[in-house]
C-alpha cells in the first residue's frame, strides 16, 4: 500500500495556497509537514483526506484507507469516554475499544463524560479514536496540541507501533514527536504564486 501525491494544487476559499506538491509515502513510513502558520498544511491534509477536491493533481490513496484527526476531536460532551470510542469503533466495524483506552492511558477515565475531561485528556481520547478505525494511513493535524510531555511521548510510541504494523502517518506538527524514522517535508517551495489576474471578482474588489 502506498500514498502517492502528484502535482497537487489545493486552495482555501478559492485562493490557491500550495501548488505542485508531490511526495510518496509507503507502508511503515511517516512524513512530517513543516511550514509556517497559514501556509496551507491543514488545507493540504484535508485535500488528501478527501474532504475537499484538489484544484489540480492526484491523490492515489482511496479515502477508504485514510483516517483524519483534525483540530477538533469529534467528541460528544454527554457521552462517556467508552461510549465515544465505542461509537467510532462500530462506525468503522472494529473492536478493541478497551485496548485503545488502555493504550492512551484513559482507563481511569473510561466512565467519565467527555465534558468533564481536561483539554489534554480530550485530546488523548480524540487520538485514541485512530486506534479503533483500522485504517492504514493516519493523517494528523497538530496532534500534540494541549498534550503534556509524557502524553506526547506516549502518542509518539503509538504512532511508531502503527508504523511497525505496516501503517503510515502523515502529520503536520511543530514539535518533535520522538519518531526518528519520520521524514521531513518543507512546504515552503510549494507555495502557490498568486496569479496576477484574479479574474473578474478580484478586479472588481
Amino acid at each position, binding site marked *: 500500500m502506498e500514498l502517492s501525491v502528484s502535482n497537487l494544487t489545493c486552495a482555501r476559499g478559492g485562493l490557491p495556497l500550495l501548488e505542485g506538491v508531490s511526495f510518496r509515502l509507503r507502508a511503515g513510513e511517516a512524513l512530517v509537514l513543516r511550514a509556517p502558520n497559514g501556509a496551507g498544511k491543514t488545507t493540504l491534509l484535508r485535500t488528501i*483526506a*478527501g*474532504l*475537499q*477536491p484538489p484544484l489540480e493533481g492526484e491523490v492515489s490513496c482511496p*479515502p*477508504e484507507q*485514510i*483516517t*483524519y484527526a*483534525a*483540530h*477538533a*476531536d*469529534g*467528541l*460528544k*460532551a*454527554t*457521552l462517556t469516554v467508552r*461510549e465515544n470510542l*465505542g*461509537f*467510532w469503533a*462500530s*462506525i*468503522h*466495524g472494529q473492536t478493541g475499544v478497551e485496548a485503545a483506552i488502555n493504550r492512551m492511558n484513559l482507563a481511569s477515565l473510561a466512565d467519565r463524560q467527555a465534558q468533564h475531561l481536561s483539554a489534554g485528556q480530550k485530546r488523548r481520547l480524540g487520538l485514541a*479514536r485512530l486506534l479503533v478505525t483500522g485504517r492504514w494511513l493516519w493523517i494528523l493535524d497538530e496532534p500534540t496540541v494541549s498534550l503534556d510531555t509524557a502524553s506526547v511521548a506516549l502518542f509518539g510510541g503509538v504512532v511508531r507501533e502503527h508504523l511497525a504494523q505496516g501503517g503510515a502517518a502523515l502529520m503536520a506538527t511543530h514539535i518533535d514527536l520522538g519518531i526518528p524514522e519520520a521524514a521531513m517535508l518543507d512546504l515552503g517551495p510549494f507555495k502557490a504564486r498568486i496569479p496576477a489576474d484574479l479574474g473578474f471578482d478580484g478586479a472588481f474588489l
Partner: protein
Amino acid sequence: MIALLVRDLKLAFRAGGGFGLGLGFFLILTVLVPLGVGPDASTLGLIAPGILWIGALLASLLSLDRLFALDFEDGSLDLLATSPIPLEAVVAIKALAHWLTTGVPLALAAPVLAILLNLPVAGYGMLVASLALGTPALSMIGAFGAALTVGLKRGGLLLSLLVLPLYVPTLVFGAQAVTRAAAGFDPVTPLLLMSGITAASVALLPFAAAFALRINLR
C-alpha cells in the same frame, strides 16, 4: 449505521439534548390557543386540525438547526464524512433520529391535546395517521435545509426561510385530511397526496442533503 442512530437517540435523551423541546412547544401552543380564541366549542373544533398541524410543523422546526450544526462544530461531521458510512446514509439516519425524537412523540401526543381544541371525534384517527405519515417529510426536508445552512453562524433564520415554503404542501394536505375526516368526508385523497410527498422526500432528499454537506465541508 445503527450505531449512529443509537448515538443520536442517546444524545437527544441526555441533558441538553433537546428531546421534549418540540413536545413542550406543541403542548404550550395547544393550551394557549383556546385561551386566545375563546371557549366557543364549535369555533375551536373548526380550527383544531389546522392549529394541530401548524403546531406540529413549528415544533419539528425548533430542533432542526442542531441537526448537523453540533456535529459540524465538534468535528464529528468531518470524521463521519471520512468514515465508511456514505454521507447519504448519515443524513437519512440523522433525519430518522430527528423523526423518532420529534415526529413520533408529536403524533402520539396529538390526540390528547386535540381534546383541548375540541376536535370532532371522527377526526382523531386521521389526526394520528396524518401526523405519523407527514412528519417524516418534515424531518427529511428539514435535514436538507440544515445541511444547506450547516456552516453558517446563527443559520436558524435562513433555515426557517428555506424550509417553511417546502413544508406548505405537507401542511395543506395533512390539515385537509384531518378536516375532512372530522367533517365526515372521505380523507383518503389528501392523505395519499401527503404520503406521496413524504415518500418522494425520503427517497430523494438524502442525496441532495449529502451533496450540500460535501460542499459545506470544503
